């Protein structure tokens, strides 16, 4: 072969294989894959041997075993004896619970702050800037701990003295509770109407669209299906309240002196808890003994307070308050001054004799503390309350005593009893009242498809309604505030990115400032804003994994507990990665949909 022959026609020249880019590429990939497989193989081998050596589970069989993890906050029924799988599902639902609410609130606050940052008002603009800059430059972990242990946990209204706000909202250091609608045993009556409503809404939507297309008109489609749905569903709900009666197998057992009751269906002697049943309870005459406590109100103030369970004046015909040891109280000159009738009172000595509590009169000069440890008896006449049993069919009322026994207890307490302790709500530790004759009139109320369950405080925790724990609130607050500062920046950027001519044109055709913003600027800004906003939503969801700092049991927290208990680190890691990837994927599907829609609108 002559040299240079190949150079005559370079296009047909054969490139030696070691210089052929394609072949090099294939070889490189081959080497890479072999190295990768070998590397992963070695690592997996390491893991397997280590797991075998330490006798740790490497499969998912542990999921079926009983978890034994107490979880206070759950969306579905759960007991400590339930499986690990169920515990993890509850964790996942809790993640969703905080993410969904957090996303909505963060959007509202973020948009508000973003608009405020562009206000023409210097003060408002500056305050919004400070809000954004401060909050997004402090680690979320610090913010969670700050809200949880520095702000909400020491929140002044203790659960023994909660704040009852209008609308049935109750606030205290344990959390927030408010009335909530729950489906009852008659929910099934409503279901066919709901299905019919959904079907008819679809029909209305389709019909309206066709009508518009036929008439070749532009008009809004959405009101039609929405109104249809609301009318039909509302009709069904209304009908579920007609002809209601209490089923004969529904029972309510109530132990008045223990303040506990259960609603249940009794079929063939077997009882099954009946959830969300309203019952009216009436107790003719009963009493309740509470020991006053020296409570730290703030950093300085210490005083002896009596705190009875949260009641309203309307719940009884009469309230009467006496000191359990009337003689001793008289001797010391003790008086009651009500901060909140009929639940909270301060004990004081009326030293200046003007008949009311003045500064310093609530402090005992002998001890320089409040008048703690004094028993006060509340006697109620015709106490009545309508309660809705919870998911497990339970209701609770204050633990009343029969009036005669209270008298007996008073007599007994006149004699000094060593070692007798009183808990916060006066379950007086007297042995004599164990067999109580206290009776109550109870009546199960008929109910429709839904029932409004009000929150109340029977003893030392919330019952009924919807309860949000302080853990949930702290985490929610921190996540919302933190994410809203990022959303505010996105919104500000989006509004600024709308061309100036749009605003000027809108003003030129006579739109007002508000109209210009809501009809012209904001819709266009939304288009720019939505994609980064959705990635902030994903961040919020992922950041909820810091829940352990607020003691909230979300997916990651429960997973790490399960991992510590079972040693199943690898399966748990795989589950976690899978769960988070699923969430990420869901968000990116939404993001792609949004992007596609926006792109369509644009052209």
């Amino acid at each position, binding site marked *: 072969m002559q040299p240079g022959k190949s150079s005559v026609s370079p296009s047909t020249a054969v490139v030696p294989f070691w210089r052929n880019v394609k072949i090099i590429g294939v070889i490189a990939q081959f080497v890479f894959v072999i190295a990768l497989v070998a590397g992963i193989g070695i690592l997996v081998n390491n893991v397997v041997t280590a797991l075998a050596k330490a006798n740790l589970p490497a499969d998912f069989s542990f999921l079926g075993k009983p978890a034994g993890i107490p979880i206070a906050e759950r969306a579905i029924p759960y007991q400590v004896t339930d499986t690990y799988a169920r515990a993890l599902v509850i964790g996942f639902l809790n993640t969703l619970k905080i993410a969904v609410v957090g996303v909505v609130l963060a959007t509202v606050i973020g948009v508000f702050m973003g608009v405020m940052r562009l206000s023409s008002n210097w*003060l408002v603009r500056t305050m919004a800037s400070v809000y954004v800059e401060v909050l997004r430059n402090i680690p979320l972990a610090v913010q969670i701990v700050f809200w949880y242990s520095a702000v909400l946990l020491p929140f002044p209204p203790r659960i023994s003295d909660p704040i009852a706000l209008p609308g049935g909202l109750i606030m205290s250091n344990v959390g927030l509770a408010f009335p909530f609608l729950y489906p009852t045993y008659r929910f099934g009556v409503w279901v066919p109407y709901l299905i019919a409503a959904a079907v008819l809404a679809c029909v209305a939507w389709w019909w309206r669209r066709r009508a518009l297309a036929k008439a070749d008109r532009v008009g809004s489609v959405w009101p039609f299906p929405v109104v249809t749905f609301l009318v039909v569903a509302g009709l069904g709900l209304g009908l579920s309240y007609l002809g209601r009666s209490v089923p004969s197998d529904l029972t309510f057992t109530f132990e008045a002196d223990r303040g506990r009751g259960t609603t249940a269906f009794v079929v063939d002697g077997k009882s099954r808890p009946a959830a969300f049943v309203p019952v009216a309870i009436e107790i003719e005459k009963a009493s309740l003994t509470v020991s006053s406590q020296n409570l730290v109100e703030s950093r300085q103030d210490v005083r002896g307070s009596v705190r009875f369970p949260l009641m309203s004046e309307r719940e009884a015909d009469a309230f009467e308050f006496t000191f359990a040891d009337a003689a001793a109280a008289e001797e010391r000159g003790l008086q009651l001054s009500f901060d909140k009738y009929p639940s909270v009172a301060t004990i004081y000595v009326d030293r200046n004799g003007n008949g009311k509590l003045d500064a310093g009169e609530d402090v005992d000069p002998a001890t320089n503390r409040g008048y703690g440890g004094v028993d006060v008896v509340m006697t109620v006449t015709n106490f009545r309350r309508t309660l809705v049993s919870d998911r497990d069919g339970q209701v609770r009322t204050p633990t009343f005593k029969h009036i005669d026994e209270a008298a007996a207890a008073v007599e007994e307490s006149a004699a000094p009893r060593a070692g007798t302790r009183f808990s916060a709500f006066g379950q007086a530790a007297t042995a004599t009242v164990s067999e109580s004759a206290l009776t109550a009139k109870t009546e199960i109320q008929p109910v429709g498809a839904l029932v409004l369950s009000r929150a109340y405080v029977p003893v030392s925790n919330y019952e009924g309604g919807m309860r949000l724990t302080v853990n949930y609130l702290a985490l929610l607050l921190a996540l919302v505030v933190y994410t809203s500062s990022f959303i505010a920046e996105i919104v500000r950027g989006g509004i600024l990115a709308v061309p100036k001519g749009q605003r000027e044109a809108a003003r030129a055709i006579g739109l007002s400032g508000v109209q210009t913003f809501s009809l012209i600027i904001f819709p266009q800004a939304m288009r720019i804003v939505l994609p980064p906003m959705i990635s902030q939503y994903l961040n919020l969801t992922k950041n909820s*994994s810091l829940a352990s700092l607020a003691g909230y049991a979300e997916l990651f927290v429960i997973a790490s507990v399960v991992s510590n208990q079972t040693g199943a680190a690898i399966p748990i890691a795989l589950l976690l990665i899978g769960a988070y990837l699923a969430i990420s994927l869901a968000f990116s599907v939404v993001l792609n949909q949004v992007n596609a829609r926006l792109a369509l609108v644009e052209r």
Partner: protein
Amino acid sequence: MIPPRPAPVKAHGFRFWLRKNLFNGPFNSALTLVAAVVAAWSLYNLGNFIFVEGSWGQVWRNMRLFGVYRYPVEHLWRPLLALGMMLGLMGVMAGAAGRKSIVAGAFLPIQGFVAVVSAVAVIFWPSVRFLWPAALALGFIGYFVGRRWPRAVKYLSWGWGAWLVVGYLLLSGFTAGGALGRVPVRDWGGFLLTLILFTGIIPSFPIGIALALGRNSKLPAIKYFCIGFIEVVRGAPLIMWLFIASLLLPLILNVDANSLPAIMRAYVAITLFSAAYMAENVRGGLQAVPRGQGEAARALGLSAWQTTLLIVLPQALRAVIPAIVGQAIGLFKDTSLVFIVGLVDFFKVGDIVSVQPEALLVTGGVKLEVFLFIAVIYFFFAYRMSIASRQLEKRLGVGER
């Protein structure tokens, strides 16, 4: 005859400013009043807490815990020397870039912070009385070196690399005996640990760039590996990766759990996590480089490697500097998550300090004080970085349409 017109409204001065910015119309005036009440209330409560109600003794007494946690007092010169070296390197960068540069704008406030701490140290902390000023001085020496010989910047990436190694050796020591006694890694903590973990962004640079280039590769095996790595890592929260790393790294590497300190595991997790985000940032930059650049380089006869390293990457990286600073802020804040693997960083010291017996004696606890202090320190550094990021954005013309 044209009727005389009224005199023009004064368009400057304080009253004009007030009218223009606060009281232009009834709605705005009402808004101003409401905002003023809210602002006054917040400022009053904050001021009242800081100056009247707060008891700051607990924070003040535990400054060493906040700073270095359990690092032995007699060895404190070592972290401070490492700090001085870091300030020196930053100083060279700042000095070379000039006094009005953004780098100097970030460096000088940090020096200011160190100067304040130095002043406090000289007065109150005898054990580090001379060490803090020495670190401060190293920073200024670096600054003047940078000003005098701006070309020193060329070798800076080597300097940072060397600093990582020297800093590690300095902090850990070599042997149990000798002048440089061994300080076990588990004793590192406080703000020192926060800074150490923050340096995880340095090794995440090359890894992230490699991942970004791999993601753009035409070779499917490499491409899909990189995509998979980036998306999986970014899909889950850092706290989960820290947890997994702390559990699985010893198993995966088949080493004894005790021989791999928690710091190392956290460092690996943070570096890889940061690398995945870095890769996405760099990829954005690669997309911003016009195609013609690469094609022109190839036409000039540069090899594929040369084209990438000398032509495309420098332009890509320059375009994403603001995004990288943004990521650095995120990482700085995220270092606070290492509590999950039992490390005691600056944030976690707060927990320890607020449950000490002395803290429990204070009515109402000192949590508010402690975490306010921690928040302020984090804020100072993160905010400083975000200002730098914004200046960079402005200067590079990113986001200006």
